């Protein structure tokens, strides 16, 4: 869809951006030392750190991706919320306190506190860099998606803009400014999502399309064939094997494409785009645009039948909202993953799906989780693998781990985690309302499952849209800042100082951290552009799998299994990292969408989420290698 530029949205966005940059420049003086730059001198108050945890963690994936998945597929988006929040239990109960006691600036500090091994420093730094980059990708994709409705700029401009602003934030004041940006963003995100939820409940649910929208049609093939104004086009070439029927309007010459709804000849109206042989983009056969003689996709997301056979519910209570949806029927839209090519170009089809509310309230609505509703074991394993990754991944994310060094002691680490869990948990409950609210708002863009939250806000007016878009943008800024800081710490502190043994004073280390931040920021921009079109929540699932497989086995075993040694830790990190990375890059999703391989290519891995295989593999490798490389005196003392 083409989004209209909103002056108000731009003004609010620039205002918030000004505040964020103002804080960074003002706090710059506090980040002159390495302790200030990487860990904010360990002086952040626990409450601020707790909300900053939320700001750090509630990324574009949480806000845009989860709302989008709920809006298009129902409960499946909430599965991510549950998994993300559960991950904090691992962080609080298992990892937080020992990590705080053992470390200084980075995750590698803690892992290496017992062994003083260059190999551990190198492995941990590589892992931090790769996990940070994989987590950066969805944030940048989110930024690119947001820039479109907010400023009317192309996707690539959004990615570059976020990269540039974040580099400025991190380079000016390191962890101090990053923390305050995340605190402001985390607080605003939860408060405005709460306000939006109240607005959704107050509006209630209606079967009447919003002003100016016409309902999508259903018809029978027989009825359309009998219409003298229409000419049925033969199902030739690629069309022969697809579930579509095309009718040309004899007067206008435009072709309308219908999808077969059943075997009885019932059809539903589709929306489609065409990229013609000369590269022009058409929607419904007309050049895409907002001007005269142009067309665009129509907004979707409607309730077709409400419980009690009413047109409108009026204001609803928090439980009543779900109860009503549960008993209703909703018209959702899907993109056909297979395009159709003929002489006029390549067609991408979007089609209607009528879903019962009760089916939307259970797992398995999206292609990622559809396996749980089938008998085959592989689909179930894919689901279990993702839920395991989300559970184990949070406590393994470098940018979350380093936040434990910004408070003064273990008690403060504990308290700030509890505050973080409260804020994050509340937010995730709200995302369910936002997602389902967007699903029935009549404002969704059928071509993007990352945009429902801002578009839902726009259905309430320009001001909510402006505020939500600006907050969403700041969301990306806050998370990306934390990630770039974690990655720059890995380069300057772990690689340059500890592994390579470069003699650096405090100022040199800060300078190295800043240069690293610039380089990582540029890399993030490039990757963000390469991964255009992926759902951000899905990409984060991969980042969690890699983080969990690479980092968690060594962290846990170091704390709870005495025979753990440096060889075991190094092997576990490298095998966990390598195996999960390889699995992700060989998955069908990567081969289809990233490497753009043609349909029918070889399948290398049985399902897309690796954690259920690679996380236990990390533990196993650590145990085996540690046992095989025990020093004789350690074995003697054991016996």
């Amino acid at each position, binding site marked *: 869809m083409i989004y209209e530029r909103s002056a108000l949205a731009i003004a609010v966005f620039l205002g918030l951006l000004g505040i964020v940059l103002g804080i960074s420049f003002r706090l710059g003086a506090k980040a002159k030392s390495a302790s200030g730059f990487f860990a904010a001198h360990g002086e952040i108050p626990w409450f601020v750190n707790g909300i900053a945890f939320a700001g750090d963690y509630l990324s574009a994936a949480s806000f845009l991706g989860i709302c989008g998945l709920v809006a298009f597929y129902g409960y499946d988006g909430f599965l991510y919320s549950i998994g993300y929040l559960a991950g904090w239990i691992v962080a609080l109960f298992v990892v937080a306190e020992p990590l705080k006691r053992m470390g200084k600036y980075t995750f590698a500090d803690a892992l290496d506190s017992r062994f003083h091994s260059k190999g551990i420093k190198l492995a941990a730094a590589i892992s931090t860099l790769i996990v940070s980059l994989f987590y950066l990708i969805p944030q940048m994709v989110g930024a690119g998606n947001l820039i479109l409705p907010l400023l009317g700029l192309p996707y690539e401009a959004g990615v570059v803009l976020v990269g540039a602003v974040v580099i400025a934030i991190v380079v000016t004041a390191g962890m101090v400014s990053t923390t305050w940006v995340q605190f402001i963003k985390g607080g605003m995100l939860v408060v405005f999502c709460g306000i939006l939820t109240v607005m959704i409940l107050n509006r209630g649910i209606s079967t009447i399309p919003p002003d100016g929208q016409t309902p999508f049609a259903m018809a029978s093939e027989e009825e359309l064939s009998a219409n003298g104004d229409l000419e049925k086009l033969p199902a030739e070439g690629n069309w022969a094997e697809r579930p579509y029927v095309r009718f040309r309007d004899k007067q206008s010459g435009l072709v309308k494409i219908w999808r077969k709804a059943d075997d009885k000849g019932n059809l539903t109206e589709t929306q489609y785009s065409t990229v013609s042989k000369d590269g022009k983009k058409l929607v419904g056969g007309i050049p895409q645009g907002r001007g005269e003689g142009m067309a665009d996709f129509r907004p979707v997301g409607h309730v077709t039948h409400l419980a009690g056979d009413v047109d409108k519910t009026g204001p609803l209570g928090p439980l009543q909202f779900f109860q009503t949806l549960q008993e209703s029927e909703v018209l959702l839209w899907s993109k056909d993953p297979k395009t159709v090519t003929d002489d006029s170009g390549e067609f991408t089809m979007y089609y209607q799906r009528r879903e019962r509310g009760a089916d939307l309230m259970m797992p398995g609505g999206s292609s990622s989780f559809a396996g749980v509703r089938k008998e085959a074991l592989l689909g179930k394993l894919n689901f279990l693998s993702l839920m395991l990754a989300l559970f184990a991944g949070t406590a393994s994310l470098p940018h979350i781990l380093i936040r434990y060094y910004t408070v003064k002691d*273990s*008690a403060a680490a504990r308290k700030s985690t*509890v505050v973080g869990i409260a804020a994050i*948990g509340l937010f995730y409950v709200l995302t369910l309302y936002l997602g389902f609210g967007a699903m029935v708002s009549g404002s969704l863009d059928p071509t993007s499952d990352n945009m429902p939250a801002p578009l839902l806000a726009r259905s309430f007016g320009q001001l909510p849209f402006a505020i939500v878009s600006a907050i969403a943008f700041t969301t990306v800024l806050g998370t990306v800042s934390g990630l770039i800081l974690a990655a720059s710490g890995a380069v300057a502190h772990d690689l340059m100082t500890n592994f390579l043994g470069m003699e650096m004073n405090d100022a040199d280390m800060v300078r190295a951290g800043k240069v690293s931040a610039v380089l990582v920021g540029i890399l993030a921009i490039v990757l963000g552009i390469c991964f255009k079109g992926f759902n951000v929540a899905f990409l984060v699932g991969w980042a969690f799998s890699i983080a969990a497989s690479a980092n968690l086995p060594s962290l846990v075993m170091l704390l709870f299994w005495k025979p753990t040694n440096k060889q075991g830790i190094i092997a576990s990190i490298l095998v966990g990292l390598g195996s999960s990375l390889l699995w992700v890059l060989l998955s069908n999703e990567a081969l289809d969408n990233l490497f753009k391989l043609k349909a029918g290519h070889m399948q290398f891995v049985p399902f897309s989420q690796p954690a259920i295989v690679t996380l236990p593999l990390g533990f196993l490798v650590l145990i085996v290698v540690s046992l095989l490389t025990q020093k004789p005196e350690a074995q003697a003392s054991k016996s």
Partner: protein
Amino acid sequence: MDQKAPRDTGITSESEQYNARLGLRLFLVYCLCYGGFMGLSAFKVTALRDVVWRGVPLSLWYGFGLIAGALVLAVIYMVLCRPESASEKGTS
């Protein structure tokens, strides 16, 4: 040597050991609840569609329960944890 080894694993005092044990117990409690949810979703997904209370299905109650349960366990942990260092004793 005996004194150094425990410090290297991050756990030195009785308080730290108590806190670590407490954390692990609460972690196991949550693991059971989370595992139950994963098991139901993967192998008996239709059970989650059942409306169990106030017109809302089990899937939503279980999800909300896991989120609220995490917070409750976190608060229990915070309250029961013992101070580990002189600075914590001063602040708590």
